[in-house]
C-alpha cells in the first residue's frame, strides 16, 4: 500500500505548520530586539532602524562588550581544556594499563550521575580555599574536565583498531607519540563533539559564574544578561537585542558542526 500523494502533501503541510509554530518564539526574539519600549512587545513587526540603534547602544557603552569577551574566554578555555585533558584520560582508560586505572574509571562513572547543583556549596568552598573566587581560574578549572567527556572519549577509544596501535609499537614509537600521532586523529569526531558541547554549555552557564564571580568585570554573558535590566534603565528591546546577539554564536557553531551536535545529543540514546 503506497500512501497517496494527497496524504503526503497534507502531512508535509501539517508538519511545516507545526515547525513554524515551534520557530515562532525564535522569531519573537528578533521582533523583541527591535521593540522600542515595553508597550511594543506584542507584535511581530521588525524595525531595522530601532534594532540598529540597540546594537550600537549595546556595543558602544556599558558592560556588554566585556561580557561577550569574558564568555569567549570562559567557553574557549573550558572547551580546549576539556578536549585535551578528557581526551588524554579517556584514551588512557581505554587503551593503556596503568596503576589506578580501575579506581579512576569507577570515580568517573560514579561522577556521571552527580550534577553541579548537588556539589555547588562544597565546590564553592574548594574554590574559595584555592583563592580563586573572582578569577577566571575559578570559573574555568572546575569545568576543565567532565565525567561525561572522559566517558565519551573512552567509549570511542575502545573501538580504535588495535592492529594500528600495535604496528606503531612494533615500529618502535613511544606511547605518547602513538597517542598524539595515531589515536588523536582517529578520535577527532569524539573530540569535536566534546568541544562543541562544552563550548555551548559554558556559553550558557549561569549558576556557577553567578556564585564565584562577584565582580562585574568578570561576568560572562549569562550573568551579564540577567543584570542588564538594572544596568540600563529597563529597555525591553535592548535586552532582547542582547539575547539575540548571545544566541548567534551557538547557532552558527551548531549549524557548522551539525553532525557532531546530533551525535553528541543522541549519545547513549540510540546506541549503547
Amino acid at each position, binding site marked *: 500500500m503506497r500512501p497517496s500523494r494527497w496524504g503526503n502533501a497534507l502531512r508535509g503541510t501539517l508538519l511545516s505548520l507545526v515547525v513554524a509554530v515551534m520557530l515562532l518564539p525564535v522569531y519573537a526574539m528578533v521582533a523583541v530586539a527591535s521593540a522600542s519600549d515595553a508597550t511594543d512587545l506584542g507584535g511581530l513587526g521588525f524595525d531595522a532602524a530601532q534594532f540598529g540603534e540597540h546594537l550600537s547602544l549595546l556595543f558602544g557603552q556599558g558592560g556588554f562588550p566585556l561580557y561577550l569577551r569574558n564568555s569567549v574566554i570562559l567557553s574557549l578555555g573550558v572547551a580546549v581544556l576539556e578536549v585535551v585533558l578528557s581526551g588524554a584520560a579517556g584514551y588512557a582508560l581505554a587503551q593503556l594499563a596503568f596503576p589506578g586505572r580501575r579506581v579512576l574509571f569507577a570515580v568517573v562513572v560514579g561522577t556521571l550521575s552527580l550534577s553541579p547543583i548537588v556539589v555547588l556549596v562544597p565546590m564553592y568552598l574548594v574554590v574559595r580555599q584555592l583563592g580563586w573566587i573572582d578569577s577566571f581560574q575559578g570559573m574555568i578549572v572546575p569545568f576543565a574536565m567532565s565525567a561525561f567527556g572522559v566517558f565519551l572519549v573512552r567509549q570511542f577509544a575502545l573501538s580504535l583498531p588495535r592492529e594500528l596501535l600495535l604496528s606503531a609499537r612494533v615500529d618502535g614509537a613511544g606511547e605518547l607519540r602513538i597517542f598524539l600521532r595515531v589515536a588523536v586523529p582517529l578520535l577527532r569526531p569524539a573530540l569535536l563533539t566534546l568541544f562543541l558541547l562544552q563550548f555551548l554549555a559554558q556559553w550558557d552557564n549561569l549558576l556557577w559564574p553567578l556564585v564565584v564571580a562577584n565582580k562585574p568585570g568578570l561576568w560572562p*554573558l549569562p550573568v551579564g544578561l540577567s543584570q542588564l535590566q538594572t544596568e540600563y534603565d529597563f529597555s525591553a528591546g535592548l535586552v532582547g537585542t542582547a539575547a539575540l546577539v548571545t544566541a548567534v554564536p551557538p547557532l552558527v557553531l551548531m549549524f557548522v558542526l551539525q553532525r557532531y551536535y546530533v551525535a553528541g545529543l543522541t549519545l547513549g540514546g540510540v546506541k549503547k
Partner: protein
Amino acid sequence: MTLTVRLPGPATTVSGRGQRWAEARAGSLLALPAAVYFLVFWVVPFAGAVWLSFTDYELAGVPAWTGLDNYHRLLGDPGFWNSARVTALYTVASVVPSIVLALAIAVPLSRPGRLNGVLRALVMIPAAMPLVATSMVWSAIFADEGLANTLIGLVGIGPQPWLTDERLALWALVIMTTWKHLGLFVIILTAGLQGLPSGVFEAAAIDGAGPLRIFARITLPLLRRTLLFVLVIAVIGAMQSFVPAFLLTKGGPAGATEVLPLYLWATGFGFERMGYASAIAMVLLVAMLALSLVQFGVLRGGDDG
C-alpha cells in the same frame, strides 16, 4: 593486558616487561590530570556535601556537627515542602507534554524526503538556543503587552499577568520549558527512529497493519531505549532546572515558582546557610537517583538488554 595475542612474528618483541612499563608510564601521565581533577572537584566536594549536611555552617564560621538536625528541620520547613511540591509539579507538567509532542512530531519527521530534511534542520534552532537568551525572550513574551497576551487576545481572552499571578507563573515556566525541550527531544527521537531497521516496517505494512497499529506494536517497543534516555534526561533536567525560574520569576510570586535548586541556591548563597543547603542537595540527589532507577526498572522490564 597482554599484547601478544594472535600476532605472529615481531609482536612478541613489544610484549613483556618493557612494554608494560612504557604503558604504565604513559597511562599515568595522561590520566594524572584527571585523577587530580576528579579528586579535587568531585570526590572531595561530594564527600564535603555529605558531611556538611550534618553540620551547622554559616559561611563566616566553622562547621559544627549537629547530626540529623538539618534533616529534622527540613521535615518541618514549609519553604522546603513548597519547593519540593513546585519541583514535582514543574517536572511532571513539562516532561509529559514535551515527550508526547516530540514523539508525535518525530515519527512523521523521521521519514526520508527533502522537505523533512529542511524541517529537521529548522527544529534544531530552538534546541540550540542558549537557555539564558531563551528565558529573556520568554519574559518578553509573557510581559503585560507581550506576544502571549496578543495571542490569547485573538481567541477573546483578556490579558493575563503571566509572571506575577500565583496560579499562572508556574504554568508560564512549564510552557517555556516544554517548548525548549521539544526541539531537543525531537532531534533525539528522530535520530533514534532513523536508526530502526526499515525491513520490519515494510513487512508489517505488507501484512496490512495500519499506521496506528505499527506505531503501537513495532515503533514504540523498538524505540524503548531512546525513549528511556529522553525520559531520564527530561526528568533529571527538570529537577535541577534553575535558570528559567531565576530569570523569569526569581521564584515568585510568593514562592509559587521556587523550585528546589533555587531554594538551595538562596539558602546557601543568599542566607549563607551552607550546612542546611547541603542537606537540601542530598535530598535532591537521592530523589534524582531514585527516579532514574525507577525509570530504568519500568522501561527495562522484560527487556533482554
